[in-house]
């Protein structure tokens, strides 16, 4: 390996080192503050190493991993999201009487797996990093061992994620049988088709199975059944991590695959993806309409958001990657803020999951209510929030490539979404019903959590008012390498 290879891999090496350092730190002295501090320092260091890695990019390190501007941008997004999730976890775990330190170990390994995903250009690295992420997530979801919902969610996730991994593996094997290569950039090329290529059925079946595996992780419509239960059962910081890091990393893989090939709009694959996108948008918003549990509501709405994101990919225009990356960034900020508030207002007894728990939050904890309001407005896509800019770019990308059907569905379903997001805000503004509910136990504010929430609220507003710098960063890094 050349020195430049190490430069390109520096963020991953730092994350690995941080995981081992946290392990050793727990071995020597068990201290929640120290462990959390080490973890966050490791994440900050890895983030700071991204510009250094960018200086070596684009660089293919072994046939497995490609570090380019696209990789660096998504790694930055994922590391920042993991940092926010770690910040929420500190206050959340501090309130519980369990062993807290190992959580950060799992968080670091999961982040490492997620960060390698956008760099994967080979089925081997894709599968390994996906498993690193998923296996760490099993532990994170079940981390509160005394809470039955968490265990139930972890077992469901274990079984369903294993099945989806099996689909992915089988699909990769079928493609390999047909094409004789596992490299993502070569499987669909005409040359490889000429080399092996006697079995179009194998190829179609393989691609279909890979799509099932990826679709499961993204929770788009036919593969979405798991998501409400897992979001509800997992501890709120873990739900935040799942919603951002896990799904964002897999979506990055999808963008990379789409950028390698032009999928003709007459092909069967394209039609399948259009149906998945449209049905996801409808079903996600529809199912969220009558939810009274805020975590389930966010879970269903996330189905819709990934349907919106697919619109950008299917548009396949010059602005597609910019639109998708910007929307993903805006979604990350808003959904992290929402789950951060849930983690912050949950007491030591249980989580505040029901909408009723949020009644009158403006009076009780106006800061948390303000952050949740801005997050909801951003998820709707109200002007002056991050979500508006994201959605505007998505629509521009869609209309620019004249995918009328999807653009119309996007607008209509966004209007449906207005109802349930606004209901959350309305509930917070209502006067607390004094008579029937026992007073919520006073929750100690976690200073760290509040700082992270403040930064996220600021991010929502900043992206909404002055998005130019972020768009410029995206255009310099994420979209420069892609031949859309």
């Amino acid at each position, binding site marked *: *390996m050349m020195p430049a290879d190490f430069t390109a891999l520096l963020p991953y090496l730092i994350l690995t080192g941080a995981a*081992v350092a946290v*392990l*050793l730190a*727990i*071995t*020597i002295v*068990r201290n929640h503050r120290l462990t959390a501090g080490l973890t966050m320092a490791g994440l900050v260091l890895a983030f700071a190493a991204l510009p250094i890695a960018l200086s070596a990019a684009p660089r293919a390190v072994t046939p497995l991993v490609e570090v380019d501007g696209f990789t660096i941008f998504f790694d930055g997004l994922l590391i920042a999201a993991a940092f926010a999730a770690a910040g929420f976890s500190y206050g959340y775990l*501090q309130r519980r*009487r369990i*062993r807290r330190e190992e959580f950060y170990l799992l968080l670091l390994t999961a982040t490492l797996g997620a960060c390698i995903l956008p760099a994967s250009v080979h089925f081997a690295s894709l599968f390994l990093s996906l498993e690193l992420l998923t296996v760490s997530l099993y532990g994170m979801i079940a981390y509160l061992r005394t809470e039955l919902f968490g265990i139930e969610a972890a077992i469901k996730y274990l079984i369903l994620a294993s099945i989806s991994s099996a689909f992915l593996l089988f699909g990769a094997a079928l493609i390999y049988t047909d094409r004789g290569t596992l490299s993502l950039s070569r499987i669909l090329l005409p040359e490889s088709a*000429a080399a092996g*290529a*006697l*079995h*179009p*059925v194998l190829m179609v079946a393989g691609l279909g199975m890979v799509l099932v595996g990826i679709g499961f992780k993204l929770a788009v419509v036919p593969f979405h059944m798991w998501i409400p239960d897992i979001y509800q059962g997992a501890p709120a910081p873990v739900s935040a991590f799942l919603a951002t890091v896990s799904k964002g990393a897999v979506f990055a893989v999808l963008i990379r695959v789409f950028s390698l090939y032009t999928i003709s709009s007459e092909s069967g694959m394209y039609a399948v993806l259009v149906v998945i996108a449209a049905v996801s948008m409808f079903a996600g918003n529809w199912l969220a309409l009558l939810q009274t549990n805020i975590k389930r509501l966010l879970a269903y709405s996330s189905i819709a958001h990934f349907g919106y994101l697919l619109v950008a990919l299917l548009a396949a225009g010059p602005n597609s990657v910019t639109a998708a990356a910007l929307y993903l960034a805006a979604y990350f900020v808003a959904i992290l803020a929402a789950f951060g508030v849930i983690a912050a207002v949950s007491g030591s007894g249980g989580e505040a999951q029901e909408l009723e728990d949020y009644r009158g939050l403006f009076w009780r904890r106006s800061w948390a209510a303000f952050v949740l309001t801005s997050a909801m407005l951003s998820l709707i896509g109200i002007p002056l929030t991050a979500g508006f800019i994201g959605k505007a770019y998505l629509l521009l990308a869609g209309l620019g490539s004249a995918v009328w059907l999807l653009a119309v569905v996007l607008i209509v379903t966004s209007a449906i979404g207005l109802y349930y997001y606004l209901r959350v805000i309305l509930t917070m503004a209502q006067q607390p019903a004094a008579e029937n509910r026992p007073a919520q136990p006073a929750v100690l504010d976690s200073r760290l959590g509040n700082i992270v929430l403040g930064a996220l609220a600021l991010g929502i507003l900043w992206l909404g008012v002055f998005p130019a710098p972020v768009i410029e960063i995206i255009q310099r890094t994420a979209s420069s390498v892609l031949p859309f």
Partner: protein
Amino acid sequence: MQTPVTEIVWPLGVYAVAVLIMVTATLAISHVLGERHSGRATGEPYESGIVPTGPSGIRFSVRFYLVAMFFVLFDLEAVFIYAWAVSLREAGWAGYAEMVFFIGVLLAALAYLWRIGALDWGSIGRKSLDRRKEESRRDADDR
């Protein structure tokens, strides 16, 4: 070069039909030829042997699982080390450095397991006693 789809699909179809026939035949033949009786133990899960006695819910220590897991973990690592040993000269110093790092991570994990008392056998090891004391003290501090 392209072969028509039907030519690829038909062996698959024959195979599927063969599987169906075999499963149906197995079930049908054993249904026809098999004897039927209703003894005291017919409904028992383990029909062909001795009638089970005593409760099946025997509790045994979770440490058995722990040891099994450690075995799988560390044994699997040994497989990687063997693979490296075979290609020692080809891998060169770079391979050596990677293996040192790999074993270093393993040692860190072993130290961690030792520290948390996962290697202690017995109803309650000294380490875990210390740890419980420490934890209760820390919980008191938190409150």
